[in-house]
């Protein structure tokens, strides 16, 4: 396991940036944009009479929180200076770009979740058990098929019969 202070670049060494950490600057900008948008949203909250609101309008508390988040975020691009002194490496996990398989997995998860109301729960489970191991490089066909058959059926039986959880059957109406 690489140590925190490893010098190997691939593991994300404690790199010396300038005053501003470029990645954290981007992260800060994204957060601040989000904060700005949400703050704009709060300006559209309905106002109620001061008596009813006990002088605390519904927007006040979220706005206070957004100010706090924005205030803290302003320090983010400079935090690496403090962390570097402590020997902490904030770049360790993000030094490498997002793994291609992670990107593929994200796409798969989004597609399967969006398709699940149409597929129904049982077909969704079978699809996940068939496709995900293959996506992740598991090439043993028999264990995959057994897994994709036994596991979804067992889970369906457990939840629908024992725990009385109603499963959507989707457009194909397949259930156990």
């Amino acid at each position: 396991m690489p140590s925190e202070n490893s010098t190997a670049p691939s593991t994300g060494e404690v790199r010396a940036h300038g005053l501003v950490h470029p990645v954290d600057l981007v992260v800060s900008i994204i957060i601040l944009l989000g904060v700005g948008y949400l703050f704009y949203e709060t300006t559209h909250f309905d106002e109620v009479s001061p008596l009813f609101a006990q002088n605390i309008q519904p927007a006040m508390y979220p706005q206070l929180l957004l100010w706090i988040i924005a205030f803290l975020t302003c320090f983010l691009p400079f935090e690496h200076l403090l962390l570097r002194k402590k020997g902490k490496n904030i770049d360790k996990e993000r030094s490498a770009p997002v793994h291609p398989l992670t990107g593929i997995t994200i796409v798969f998860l989004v597609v399967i979740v969006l398709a699940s109301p149409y597929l129904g729960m049982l077909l969704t489970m079978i699809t996940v058990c068939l496709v995900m191991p293959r996506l992740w490089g598991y090439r043993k066909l028999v264990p995959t098929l057994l897994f994709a058959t036994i596991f979804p059926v067992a889970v369906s039986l457990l939840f629908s019969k024992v725990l009385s959880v109603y499963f959507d059957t989707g457009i194909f109406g397949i259930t156990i």
Partner: protein
Amino acid sequence: MDAIIEGFSLLLKLENIILISLGVLIGVLVGALPGLSSPMAIALLTPFTIQLEPIPAIAMLAALYCAGTFGGSITAILINAPGAPPAVATALDGYPMAKRGEPGRALGLATVASVSGGIISLIIFIVAAPTLASVALEFRPPEYFALAVFALSMLASMTGKSSLRNLIAGAVGVLLATVGIHLTTGVERFTFDIPDLDEGIHFVPVLIGLFAIGELLSQSSTLNDKVERIEAKAMKLPTLKELKELRNCILRSSGIGTFIGILPAEGSTVAAIVGYNEAKRFSKKKEEFGTGTPEGIVGPEAANNSAAGGAMVPTLALGIPGSGSTALILAALIMHGFRPGPFLLNETPEFLYAIFGAMLFANIAFLGIGLAGAKFFSLVTFIPKQLLWPAVFIFAIIGAYSSSSSFVDVYVMLIAGLVGYFMNRHGFGAAPLVMGLILGKMVEEAFSQSMIIYDNNFWALMESPIVLFFFALTALNLSTPFWTGFRNRKAAA
């Protein structure tokens, strides 16, 4: 005393014992599987407990929590990869001992230390919780507001890469708690015209997304990592002579762990690291640390398990979670219609003692499970990730869906998972966000009520010595990084 007996007797139903045993088994399994964690298992299991009575439901989750902390030590010892973060320090001496041919002894030491730490902390729990709750009865909304603010400030010192990122994540969690219809005015906030958001963001899908989907995505990039596995054929319990030698270390670490666990937002991981360091500091054989010394195993193990018990004290007595896992248990309590805090302990003490009993049972059950299943648990580490994680994803979908039979919750889970993955990549922890989400409503409600009590005069809050005490602690806590930095610079100059 009557409440204790009544609480224990509530557990004596066969159904409850089976469920608690199931919680222990799932906890040890989940703890033993690298990547899976007890917060994730609690998040996944919570929606299914809605079918159960509150006592077995919460008892099962509490047992899972204790067992998950112990289970993490199995992989820490056998494959040098902590199954759960609290076992990180156990690997330092556990793995070297296993590598030199004594995996059974290392597992035995870890088990005995875990059981001892867990039981000691529960005894402290049984003494401390009623005392704390009776003090907390004096608490009114201003005191609760100050306590919640203090708990949120403790996120700065929570385990993670950066205090600043923990605080930002916590504040985002508090902000998420504002989604929905404002309780006092009935005004919609951040609902974006989506009716499902009127009631606010449901805890369960967010918790599942952050802990399960976020970790699933992280695991997808480590599929080719090779680890050396050591097979344990049987667990070997320490001899009486060995136990006598380790007695002080176990007691010290249990005390440290319980104390750290009680502190809001401090968790088992911090306790384990401090427990290890203190075991080393007091040891006569400091040079043997890192080479497989028994003290290096029992120190962190007693500390991390006692922290699990300790963290339940503020969770149940004050309604302030002591760690990420207890935040999830708190969410489960709320889901079952309870309002954790002093009233719970004063009005239904038997309920809390039943949970205490379940945790005690769980701690004793480790010993049996560890002795009987050492070989089995060393084998579960061989389950291919390519089959394990699709199974986790399925449980995540079902868990999110079944909490309110709505696909919107599944979408929320997925969004939370994606956000959780990128948050984790940039050093923002999921646990601070969850604690913010859970404490958020309490902070706003307590603040609003305080303002009503004090006629909108914020400074009048300071009239309460308890409020002043918690605000002083908050200021001290938030300023610690600055003054320690200043002191270090001065020392270096």
